[in-house]
């Protein structure tokens, strides 16, 4: 009994502490509500202002469900104004009494013409909302306009655009894969409308699968993310699709990579009413590359990619939202029809993703929502040789997930978010040829997770987030395990809420790995689950920084971080074929560094500077050493780019053109230098009685077949400094029927020979170091059409 009393006292104390700010706020009230359009859809990103005597007193923005909230409003009479892209401005007079919470719902009318100032204002509003309401996570948001600001390879690519954010490292021009703050690329959780996507890349990493025409926004959480996110330890990248506004529209594009088209529209009013809905919006796109056609005059390259993406969103009359997302994409390399002279071996190779997800969101009065999701995601590759039935290479991973999130706001200062998820992951990998299995792994894992997170805020003073995530992972084969992952974040505002110090700490867990060799610039992921063969990853992370708005249009952020990783993996090159469980090596990692972001919005010239400093380490058993047990080796992984700086600008050009610029400079990435070479021999028994033959003497030996290399210190050398300037120019030509946007992108404008690989050729006389560069000067162009 005494025990219960103590617990009640503790609970009462906690509640009193949570509610204290309301009392401390004195007589201040609050204004909150929801903004929808004239069809009943919630409107995201509306800038909301409370104005008294012509002076803005409070401002904020609407979230995905159209909610806005402005606490700590002094009593008095105000005018509330709401402005947003594509909508007429709305105003409403209101009065706030002492301690009163004013609830207000507004309906905005659509307006066809977009006004630049409003666009910038809405972006600024969303960024500011993040700054005000997010405590621990380092959130960087990219709108479509940002994406198009970054010059791209043939067409805008959300994942390549992420590279320009602080803390994000790309190891080569050839890959859209990215590393965040010393994490491996498989440690990034990539979500398409909330659905996890494995390996979202075409052509082995050259392009992402995300079609910019379908994009609404991309948001990268590069650290300190809250307890609702589990499953990856390094970052969360959320890609949100645009379901359109319900009006019929066509977005088309032709680039050197592919042709694409996206259609959008709404369901007929009769059907909508019959379903008891307020409206239905949808958008669908298709894309196909034409390398195979373009390159045909020069040589046969029977490769193409194709993808389809669709999203539909329905709003009920009560304001609920139902959203369905689907994606299917394939890469196809068909070497079965080539002339024997060109390519003697017939190969049929394909890989791709399938994703489908449904989500129901029920808003709650006063803010908050119940959100239910089900999704399925798959990635797979398969390679066969039609002439040789004994050969098969395949790899597949899938994830089926159901989750429920519940967001409640018991007071204007306290937000509680909790949720639970259940998911099943499976994987199946096989490499077999010549009657022998060289690698096989399959299994499944069930993950049940639950989290709770409390956010307490004292506007423009304090923001505290405390959360806990519990995971129960049950692999088959393997032993079940439980992980407790606490998260804590604290933000202290200063300068009347325009600046803040922030601190976040947390534990993050992951139960899936990619075995892709990250030293290769391109490659396909081979996924395995934690269990009998591979460990789970546990990462403890700490970050601290300062951020704020020194001026209205300027945002500044400086953060330092420290991350430890236990359970990172790599392939064991010396695995024992008699041991099924030693083909994956377990290791540890550590990274620390600092990220600086200075961003300017508004005005004729906008953009940002991002500077990152990183030191990353990985430690694994050194299986290339002759000793057993193998000693460990600690080295800088290939993504240890010590200093990486990006300048991104958007600026006006003459004759109505708009310019974009990205200049990237970074320390060279590490590599392992070959310090010598020697002739390579193999024993031959059948007719040489075990004597050795030099491999280079045989007809099928290539230039290097006869020699092997001796390596220096693992990743002990670095390539030269990387730098590259990309520029773009776009012009929006408006016609009565729509718009046409021709664009020109020039990558590597001054033709910097950034090194992809060095080759140490000791067989040459004299020995030489040669190499191959990344992108040369590469102009691309295209056109987009919207109507």
């Amino acid at each position, binding site marked *: 009994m005494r025990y219960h009393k103590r617990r009640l006292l503790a609970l009462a104390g906690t509640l009193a502490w949570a509610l204290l700010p309301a009392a401390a706020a004195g007589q201040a009230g609050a204004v909150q509500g929801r903004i929808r359009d004239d069809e009943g859809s919630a409107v995201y990103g509306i800038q909301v202002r409370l104005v008294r005597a012509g002076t803005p007193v409070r401002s904020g923005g609407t979230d995905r469900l159209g909610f806005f909230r402005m606490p700590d409003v002094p009593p008095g009479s105000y005018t509330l104004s709401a402005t947003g892209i594509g909508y007429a401005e709305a105003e409403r007079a209101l009065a706030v009494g002492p301690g009163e919470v004013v609830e207000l719902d507004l309906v905005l009318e659509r307006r066809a013409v977009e006004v630049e100032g409003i666009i910038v204002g809405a972006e600024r509003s969303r960024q500011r909302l993040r700054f005000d309401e997010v405590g621990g996570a380092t959130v960087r948001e990219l709108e479509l306009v940002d994406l198009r600001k970054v010059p791209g390879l043939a067409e805008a690519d959300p994942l390549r655009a992420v590279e320009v954010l602080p803390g994000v490292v790309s190891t080569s*021009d050839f890959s859209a894969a990215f590393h965040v703050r010393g994490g491996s690329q498989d440690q990034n959780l990539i979500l398409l409308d909330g659905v996890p996507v494995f390996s979202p890349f075409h052509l082995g990493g050259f392009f992402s699968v995300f079609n910019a025409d379908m994009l609404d926004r991309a948001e990268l959480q590069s650290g300190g993310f809250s307890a609702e996110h589990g499953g990856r330890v390094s970052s969360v990248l959320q890609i949100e699709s645009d379901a359109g506004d319900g009006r019929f529209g066509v977005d088309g594009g032709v680039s050197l990579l592919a042709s694409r088209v996206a259609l959008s529209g709404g369901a007929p009013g009769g059907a909508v009413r019959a379903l008891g809905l307020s409206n239905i919006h949808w958008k669908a796109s298709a894309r196909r590359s034409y*390398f195979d056609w373009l390159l045909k005059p020069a040589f046969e390259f029977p490769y193409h990619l194709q993808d389809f993406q669709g999203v539909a969103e329905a709003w009920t009359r009560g304001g609920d939202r139902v959203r369905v997302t689907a994606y299917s994409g394939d890469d196809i*390399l068909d070497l079965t029809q080539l002339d024997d002279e060109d390519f*003697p*071996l017939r*190969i049929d*190779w394909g890989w791709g993703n399938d994703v489908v997800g449904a989500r129901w969101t029920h808003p709650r009065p006063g803010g908050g929502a119940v959100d239910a999701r089900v999704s399925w995601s798959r990635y797979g590759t398969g*390679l066969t040789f039609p*002439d*040789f039935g004994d050969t098969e290479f395949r790899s597949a991973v899938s994830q089926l997930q159901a989750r429920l999130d519940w967001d409640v706001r018991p007071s204007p200062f306290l937000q509680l978010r909790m949720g639970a998820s259940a998911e099943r992951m499976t994987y199946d990998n096989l*490499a077999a*040829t*010549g*009657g*022998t299995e*060289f690698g096989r792994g399959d299994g499944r894992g069930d993950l049940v997770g639950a989290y709770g997170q409390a956010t307490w805020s004292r506007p423009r003073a304090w923001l505290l987030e405390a959360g806990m995530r519990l995971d129960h992972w049950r692999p088959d084969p393997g032993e079940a395990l439980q992980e407790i992952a606490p998260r804590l974040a604290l933000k202290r505002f200063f300068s009347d809420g325009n600046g803040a110090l922030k601190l976040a700490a947390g534990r993050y867990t992951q139960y899936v790995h990619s075995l892709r060799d990250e030293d*290769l*610039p*391109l*490659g396909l992921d081979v996924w395995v689950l934690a269990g009998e063969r591979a460990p789970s990853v546990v990462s403890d992370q700490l970050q601290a920084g300062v951020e704020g708005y020194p001026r209205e249009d300027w945002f500044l952020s400086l953060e330092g971080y420290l991350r430890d990783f236990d359970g990172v993996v790599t392939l064991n090159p*010396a695995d*024992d*074929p008699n041991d099924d469980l030693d083909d994956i090596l377990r290791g540890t990692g550590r990274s620390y560094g600092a990220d600086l972001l200075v961003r300017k919005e508004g005005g004729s010239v906008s953009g940002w500077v991002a500077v990152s400093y990183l030191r990353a380490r990985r430690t694994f058993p050194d*299986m*290339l050493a*002759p000793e057993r047990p193998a000693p460990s080796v600690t080295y800088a992984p290939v993504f240890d780019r010590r200093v990486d700086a990006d300048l991104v600008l958007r600026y006006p050009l003459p004759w109505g053109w708009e310019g974009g610029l990205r200049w990237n400079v970074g320390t060279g990435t590490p590599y392992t230098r070959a310090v*010598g*070479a*020697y*002739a390579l021999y193999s*024993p*031959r028994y*059948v*007719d040489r*009685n*075990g*004597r*050795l*033959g*030099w*491999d280079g003497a*045989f007809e*099928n030996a290539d230039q*290097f077949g006869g020699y*092997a*290399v*001796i390596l220096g210190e693992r990743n002990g050398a670095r390539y030269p400094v990387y730098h590259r300037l990309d520029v773009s120019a776009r012009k929006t030509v408006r016609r009565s029927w729509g718009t046409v946007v021709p664009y020109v992108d020039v990558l590597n404008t001054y033709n910097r*020979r950034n*090194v992809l*690989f060095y*080759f140490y050729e*000791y067989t040459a*006389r*004299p*020995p030489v*170091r*040669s190499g*191959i*560069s*990344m992108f040369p000067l590469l102009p691309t162009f295209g056109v987009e059409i919207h109507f």
Partner: protein
Amino acid sequence: MRVAAHKVLAGGACGARRLGRGLAALAASAAILVAAGCSLEEITLVEAEDVVVAEVYVQVGGGSGGTNRVTAWLHRTLAAGSPSSAPVPGAEVLVTSARGLTLELAETDKEICAYVRPREGTGTCYATTAEFAGEIFPGDFLELEIALPGGGLIRGSSRVPEGFLMLTPSAHATCRLEPLTPLELRWTASGGAWAYVGEALIRGLKEALAPQGIKVLDDPLYLQGLAVSAEDTTIVLPGEFGLFDRFDLDQGLAVALQRGLPAGTEAQVVITAGDRNYVNWLRGGNFNPSGVVKIPSLRGDGTGVFATSVSRRFQVVVPEAGGSTAAPPCVGG
């Protein structure tokens, strides 16, 4: 303009893991072709590390007539300014067994160790006689010590794989096979083996396949097969041989071999069980754009391999239609 494709694929016929990597690299190289990365200026290197490379093999049953061989082939990394590798004369090479046997390998003719060498390259061969080598048995634990002439020691150790018996074909040195009949070779497991390397030298293909218009450039044709792990004790002859030659073989020939050996051909076959060191050296290690990386089993003042193996050999004869041979059938004989 030059691309990295052939560099990525470098390595030749050693290990199917490399085949998998090669295929993965195929896509990579294709993409690199499309993206057209440019070659960089060549810089002359003035230094190359001088490292002794020792390739020491203990081959039980691998020699002529099924005798044992113990040889050490010592050479060096290529010197700066010269593509040749230098010899390593005057070394003391000792192989000792846990049973108390000590073999001192004597410097001998290069041909004993290596039947083909780089044009300007060379090395030094050390070997013992078949009589002494015959004192080594399957399952023996062996240690190697090489004292280099200028000072320095290289050491290694290995356990010889256990002996194994052929089940199909059984104990016969020569057996008879019906034309176009794939033959599943089967044997008992060799304890401690990490892999079995199969070698087949097929004679008579050129004439046998000429009526089908299939070109056979090499006759006899040498092919390799592989069975990974001690328990993987089957390989199909000839379809699963030539695994690493499928990029190079005439595809008509490669497909024809899937159907079996044609009439009028014969194949000499050796199955070799290799230890850990043998397999690691054979298959190679991590990717490096400059060339093949081997996993050594020697430590000290040099690198290289101390490999042990056990071999079994036999011959398969496929008579002409209407022809006959005294050899027993390969299956059920």
